């Protein structure tokens, strides 16, 4: 925990499903780069030894059955809300999000006075970039979101994000199940939250398999597009229900 009372209480949330091959090194790297932060691994009912591989100085929440990425992330934000954290940063358990880049998210959150900061691979285009087929899908989703919000998001599917207290409480109350990353941008914007981006460098995953296989990419884009259109007609975060205590 930070010793300076002015420092925000920071929680690093690492959702993991069958990431036994990479989770220990990811947690150790977070510990090394962010000694003042608490670490929470949300084990989404892995069938391998993911939970056992987590170093002892990190908290582990083991879900009794698989809730998917939306349910796992909401568990992390619910934990953050229950324990009074000021900022929660989402870091993938597969090693794609270098913990050294977290400070860029936190700096951008302060400078831009944003509620949610998304780490974008495409602002500077350094480091690992997805293959061309996936880039095409990301571009379609990006145009759709920007058409609806005019925020100018470049990396809507990035899961490398920092959320402040307001967003933590909103997510603890409700979080999308199926396509959380792109959907929350539109929903948060419509609910009056400030969403911005920071340039980050990402790496290739250390182990495990992607949750969106290549062949399902096209179907994924179609479903996300339909879901985004539905998001235009709902407000899942009524202001009076999500105010932090």
């Amino acid at each position, binding site marked *: 925990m930070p010793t300076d009372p002015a420092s925000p209480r920071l929680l690093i949330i690492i959702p993991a499903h069958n990431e036994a091959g990479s989770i220990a090194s990811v947690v150790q790297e977070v510990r090394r780069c962010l000694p003042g932060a608490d670490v929470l691994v949300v084990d989404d009912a892995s069938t391998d030894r993911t939970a056992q591989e987590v170093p002892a100085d990190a908290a*582990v929440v083991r879900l009794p059955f698989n809730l998917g990425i939306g*349910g796992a992330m909401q568990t992390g934000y619910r934990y953050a809300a229950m324990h009074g954290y000021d900022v929660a940063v989402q870091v993938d358990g597969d090693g794609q999000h270098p913990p050294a880049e977290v400070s860029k998210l936190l700096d951008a959150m302060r400078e831009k006075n944003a509620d949610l900061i998304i780490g974008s691979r495409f602002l500077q285009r350094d480091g690992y970039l997805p293959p061309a087929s996936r880039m095409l899908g990301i571009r379609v989703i990006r145009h759709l979101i920007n058409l609806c919000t005019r925020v100018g998001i470049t990396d809507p599917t990035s899961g490398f994000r920092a959320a402040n207290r307001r967003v933590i409480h909103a997510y603890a109350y409700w979080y999308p199940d199926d396509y959380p990353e792109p959907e929350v941008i539109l929903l948060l914007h419509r609910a009056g939250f400030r969403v911005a981006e920071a340039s980050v460098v990402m790496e290739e995953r250390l182990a495990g398999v992607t949750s969106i296989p290549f062949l399902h990419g096209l179907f994924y884009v179609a479903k996300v597009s339909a879901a985004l259109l539905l998001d235009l007609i709902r407000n899942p975060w009524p202001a009076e229900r999500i105010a932090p205590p």
Partner: protein
Amino acid sequence: MNLDTLLHLRTLILLGVAVVITLLTIRSLRAQRLKERYVLLLLFTGLPFLLFALWPNGVVFLQNVLEIEKPTLLTLCVAIYFLLTTFILLSIVSVQERKIDQLAQIIAISQSSNRSETDAGSNAS
């Protein structure tokens, strides 16, 4: 009633069903009573009704293509009944699924906190 009147009546019925299903699903989505994936399912299932409402001769066209002797209104009525039944069941499933997910999350967090306290206690002793 002549054939034109019947066709108009059918168009109105089908349009009515399409509008009612669309409004019900959107209302349930906004009220968090229906999950997004089920909304998409229902909207896509309702599309044939909209198609046949806007193109009444489509049923006759299908009759000829599929060589079905009589495109009966009964079939449509049964389809509408099943669609509405599915809608109600999916609404129940959505609400219960969300509650079960919340329960699972809270139990998992509580177990994690208990584990931390036990570890802290054993370290202290």
